């Protein structure tokens, strides 16, 4: 649905984005992550046609955005990181203005439906300049969804929202996902991305480091898996024998709770369960401790930044 090919952007001599080639499939939720200044917003702006790439191309719906901007843009909804509104308009006037631009059918009905969903209806006649940042963020969502876009591009979509607002937005995104909308989310709130994204792309210093599903990312990052075991009064011999199992790399005990580290090549819960049942142990609970997106993000970006810094230092020494 969205494809970038060797996308590059230079501002003078500063390379903000270098060789970004990403691919977002139809109907998926794609998390686009990176540390501050990584080039996420620059990449998004090039995808939207707001910034012209120094090199490379962007295709949306199989077409280059600069060749068919009108056809493409009316099928995209955007919630930008920094919301910029006409402060002198009421929210209702603002939405109807964009509805006319987008030729939305039954515009008033659609705008009302979305405003009610995001609890903005009672503020429809308030000037947008008088809205809080969270309300403006929600208004941005309403504008982005007015024309039922096929693609949603969201840059920090829940920034400034209270927990109720985050839940409302999450419900809307789930509904859109179920309806087949392709969603690209750039966010620092990794727990939200982890909860919703089908695939994640991580960018740092203008380069795409990795692009994969969450399970594969965890596999890339973890050298081992961890299983949390709650046992009822385990015997010492049981624990000793458990740690001696061939697939167990280490065992950490916290009272009756055990953290069993295993090799990363498969899920060993079945083998553990069989062993414990054979020994007559009472298992109160067993769960796989998954590497969080935050851990994966930090590990991957730190690793690459260390490698770049090292090669830059070596280059400086040679010079």
């Amino acid at each position, binding site marked *: 649905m969205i494809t970038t090919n060797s996308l590059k952007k230079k501002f003078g001599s500063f390379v903000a984005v270098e060789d970004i080639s990403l691919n977002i499939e139809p109907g998926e939720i794609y998390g686009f992550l990176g540390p501050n200044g990584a080039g996420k917003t620059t990449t998004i702006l090039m995808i939207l046609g707001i910034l012209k790439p120094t090199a490379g191309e962007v295709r949306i719906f199989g077409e280059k955005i600069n060749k068919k901007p009108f056809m493409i843009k*009316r099928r995209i909804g955007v919630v930008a990181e920094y919301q910029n509104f006409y402060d002198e308009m009421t929210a209702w006037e603002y939405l109807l203005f964009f509805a006319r631009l987008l030729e939305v059918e039954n515009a008033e009905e659609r705008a009302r439906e979305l405003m009610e969903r995001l609890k903005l209806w009672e503020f429809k006649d308030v000037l947008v300049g008088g809205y809080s940042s969270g309300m403006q963020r929600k208004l941005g969502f309403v504008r982005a969804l007015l024309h039922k876009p096929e693609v949603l591009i969201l840059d920090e979509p829940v920034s400034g929202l209270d927990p109720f607002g985050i839940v409302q937005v999450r419900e809307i995104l789930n509904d859109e996902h179920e309806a087949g909308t392709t969603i690209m989310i750039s966010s620092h709130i990794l727990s939200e991305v982890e909860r919703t994204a089908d695939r994640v792309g991580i960018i740092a210093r203008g380069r795409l480091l990795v692009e994969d599903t969450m399970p594969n990312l965890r596999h890339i990052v973890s050298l081992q898996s961890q299983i949390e075991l709650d046992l009822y009064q385990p015997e010492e011999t049981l624990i000793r024998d458990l740690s001696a199992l061939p697939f167990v790399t280490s065992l950490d005990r916290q009272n009756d709770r055990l953290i069993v580290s295993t090799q990363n090549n498969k899920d060993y819960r079945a083998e553990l369960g069989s062993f414990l049942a054979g020994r007559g142990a009472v298992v109160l609970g067993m769960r796989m401790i998954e590497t969080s997106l935050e851990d994966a993000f930090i590990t991957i970006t730190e690793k690459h930044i260390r490698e770049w810094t090292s090669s830059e230092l070596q280059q400086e020494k040679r010079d």
Partner: protein
Amino acid sequence: MINQNAWYQRWNAIKVIRGRYSQVTLEHLGIYVTIAIALVMSTLAIHNTLRFTERNVVFVARQPLFLPIFICTVLVSLYLGAIASVSVSRERDRKTLEALMYGPVDESAFLLGIFLAHVQIFLVALAFLFIWSNLAVWLLNLGISLEVYSVFFVSVVMASAIVAFGLLTAVWGDKTRTALVIFILILLFLTGVQIADQIVSNMVVSSNPTSNDPILIIRNALAIVTRLVQWLSPYAQLIQAMDAVANQSWIGFITNLGVLVIQTFVLLFGSVKLLTIKGARG
């Protein structure tokens, strides 16, 4: 079913933006104050013309409505050109242009929408001037002729050129204040050159002027610059068109009209091109 044709969609964007900016400008007092001041000055102009005619026992005052029309259209077009410039600059300053361009709006649709909005408002001002002219004709027993209607027509094209110039300065200047300064400075320069030429032309040179006479040198230099300015300045073109009409030189009138149309297109094209290069973010 939405028409997917790009030109249709561009035209839709132009209409919506035109509608918004027409409404915003018409809801503000500024345009009405400007029209009122312009009509007051036009009234004074025609009053002075008639007093001169009476005092000097001149039975024929040629085209007494031309000067009032000129004053009114210059004032209103200056106001609209400045407002158009501010409109574009503000959209870029507060980054609402970027939000517009997330949707089916491109640089040409945005600028043409604002351009048409302000030309439309000029037509509203012209309607006031038309009513005033007819009142003046009726009260003062003057004649209204084809020449006057021709001048009304060419003033619309002149105002279009000034509005297009306002758009160009806005895109060029990025920030609102810079754009306005550029707009005013260039217009002052164009006017100043013509005034300076008038002044220097009337200065007395020495009885044996040589080629090194400073007044002659300045006069010659200003003559060259003034000729260039007369091609570049929409106001100068309007004056020349009025002269052509008064002298029944319709070829001259059409030439001036053509120059104004070309100026408008060049300025509009330049604005769109420059905004495309600079981008919505500046």
